């Protein structure tokens, strides 16, 4: 009952006209950038981080959360009509959704994606509402050693388990951790890796890194490939009303997708890709018309789209209760908390009760807004897709300049932006994941801090990490996550 009272209080916060306006602005902006290929919520929130100096924390986070959820809705539109998934989590949606659009069933695909996102987003937010307080109870038992081990586990899962290569994932992560260490060490006052550049004493700004990787790097990469093939935007030929059969085939897929997405998103491993893949294979297996898969099966849109949105809500659980971001977007939101001087963690729900519950309540409200924005107004979003690429990317780079130059008016930040953009281009070309860079950059210094705390408490005894049962369990899980796939392959081969 306590949770419900808190949630009611949250609604009182979220329903003030100012916060409603922030939520609306967020979902509007989020949908728009979700629709634009190559732009994601992490980049958008990074560009908007400077508003944290002007707006109160609650309003800013309601805005960010709206962008986060809105981008999930917008991304599915692009996948279905353009077959260029904006984010890895919507690759699966493109698989069946684009086929449906080719067969003239684009309207039904968009409808099942939007309604499925609404259902899953609401279920996921319900999950967040009731699971978060339980996780907090548990997390209060954590000492620095446990936190450090938990971060190691998250490091391994976000970089080594997802993606094509564990080595490249870990390489990206360590590069990010190094970027995070640049600047004055807060505990000892020593400058680290500043190469004599005064501007680097304050550290590298996460905005510069996020915008460099996601905007500059992405633009460079796309420019070198642009002349090879342009995607055509498929017109919507049918109505957005789903038939009785569509409903019958969709609703179970939505529920199953949500059931997969939320728990997997809420694990400290995070990532929306795994649940969308799982949901796709599950739906294929359970479908009464498996032959339709690959040709545009509606379950193949409904399930993964639901899984994607439910896991987006799930990712907020470790982020709000443990201060543990498991996606690039969550990592940038964490840095927004830091710029308000708020430390996310088990205490957050108590010390910032209005902020957290207002944020959660705004997710319920945002979901309703998004359903309205995405069904009747879908034609408007499709028009955004028609912006010619030369103008679109020109505009993106101008915004990238504002985002970085506006922080400090220092050309150093612009040079850093372009260097990181160049690195992002190489990473994209040579198939490195970029999200671990951002996660490492934010989480690396926090891991160092917990490690130091643990060592201070244990009088410098490193074995504390393996003698405390909870900490040991987390480290064993990390080792399994790292070695497990290799052992499995070896075992499968030796059985032949």
């Amino acid at each position, binding site marked *: 009952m306590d949770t419900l009272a808190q949630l009611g209080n949250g609604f009182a916060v979220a329903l003030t006209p100012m916060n409603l306006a922030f939520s609306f602005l967020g979902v509007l902006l989020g949908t728009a950038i979700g629709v634009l290929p190559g732009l994601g919520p992490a980049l958008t929130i990074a560009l908007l981080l*400077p*508003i944290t100096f*002007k707006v109160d924390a609650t309003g800013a986070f309601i805005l960010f959360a709206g962008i986060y959820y809105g981008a999930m809705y917008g991304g599915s539109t692009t996948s279905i009509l353009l077959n260029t998934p904006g984010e890895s989590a919507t690759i699966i949606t493109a698989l069946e959704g684009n086929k449906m659009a080719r067969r003239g069933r684009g309207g039904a695909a968009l409808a099942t994606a939007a309604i499925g996102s609404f259902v899953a987003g609401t279920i996921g937010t319900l999950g967040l509402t009731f699971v978060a307080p339980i996780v907090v109870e548990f997390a209060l038992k954590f000492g620095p050693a446990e936190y450090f081990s938990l971060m190691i586990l998250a490091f391994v899962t976000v970089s080594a388990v997802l993606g094509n*290569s564990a*080595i*490249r994932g*870990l*390489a990206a992560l*360590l*590069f990010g951790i*190094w970027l995070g*260490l640049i600047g004055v*060490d807060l*505990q*000892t*006052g*020593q*400058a*680290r*890796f500043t*190469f004599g550049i005064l501007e680097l004493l304050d550290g590298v700004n996460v905005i510069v890194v996020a915008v460099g990787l996601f905007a*500059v790097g992405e*633009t*460079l990469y796309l*420019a*070198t*490939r*642009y*002349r*090879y093939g342009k995607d055509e935007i498929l017109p919507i030929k049918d109505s957005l009303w789903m038939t009785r059969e569509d409903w019958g085939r969709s609703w179970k897929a939505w529920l199953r997708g949500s059931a997969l997405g939320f728990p997997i998103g809420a694990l400290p491993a995070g990532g929306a890709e795994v649940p969308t893949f799982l949901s796709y294979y599950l739906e294929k297996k359970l479908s009464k018309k498996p032959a339709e898969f690959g040709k545009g099966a509606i379950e193949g849109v409904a399930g993964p789209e639901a899984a994607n949105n439910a896991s987006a809500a799930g990712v907020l659980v470790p982020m709000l209760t443990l201060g543990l971001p498991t996606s690039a977007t969550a990592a940038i939101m964490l840095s927004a908390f830091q710029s308000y001087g708020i430390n996310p963690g088990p205490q957050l729900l108590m010390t910032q009760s209005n902020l957290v519950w207002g944020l959660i309540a705004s997710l319920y409200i945002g979901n309703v807004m998004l359903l309205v924005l995405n069904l009747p107004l879908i034609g408007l979003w499709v028009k955004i897709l028609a912006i*010619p*690429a*030369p*103008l679109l*990317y*020109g505009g993106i*780079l*101008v915004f990238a*300049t*504002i985002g970085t*130059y*506006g922080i400090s*008016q220092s*050309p150093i930040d*612009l*040079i850093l932006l*372009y260097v990181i*953009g160049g690195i992002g281009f*190489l990473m994209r*070309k*040579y*198939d490195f994941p970029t999200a671990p860079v951002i996660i490492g950059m934010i989480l*690396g210094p926090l*891991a*160092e801090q917990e*490690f*130091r705390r643990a*060592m*201070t408490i244990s009088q*410098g005894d490193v074995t504390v990490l393996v003698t405390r049962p909870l900490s040991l369990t987390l480290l064993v899980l990390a080792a399994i996550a790292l070695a497990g796939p290799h052992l499995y392959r070896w075992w499968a081969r030796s059985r032949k």
Partner: protein
Amino acid sequence: MQERSSGAIAVAIGFVLVGVVVGYETSQIADTPLYAKVGPKVFPSFVAGGLILLGLALLWDAWSGRWKAEDDDESRPIDWSALGWLGFGLLFNVALIGTVGFILASTVLFASVARAFGSTKPARDIAIAFVFAAIVYIGFAKLLGINMGTGLIERFL
């Protein structure tokens, strides 16, 4: 044996070098044992060691041909003219934003990016770029109060 990608090998070597630089810079950090149980060098040493090890693993992957660029396809070479236009726009922006101001620097940046993406109407691009940059400047500098510096046009706004 698959074919090696020389680009991937170069990236791997570059990565090892980053690790070596991080290692060297770590050794240059002054130690102050008085302040903390775990000094400022400990964590960076882990990172440096990890970077070098992973760099060597990358090199091994590249050498054995298991890892190459996603589009290392001979039939689709890099579009150097596009990269050139982009590079020009970015360098111009860095070099001149401080003197000519955000609006003019951004106009050039926007138009060169548009050129890189295959636009054949430079006059239209420059016109759109100028209007766009001016609107964005007014929006950010005047409405949101973000300091975007001054310049040839900005001083009259």
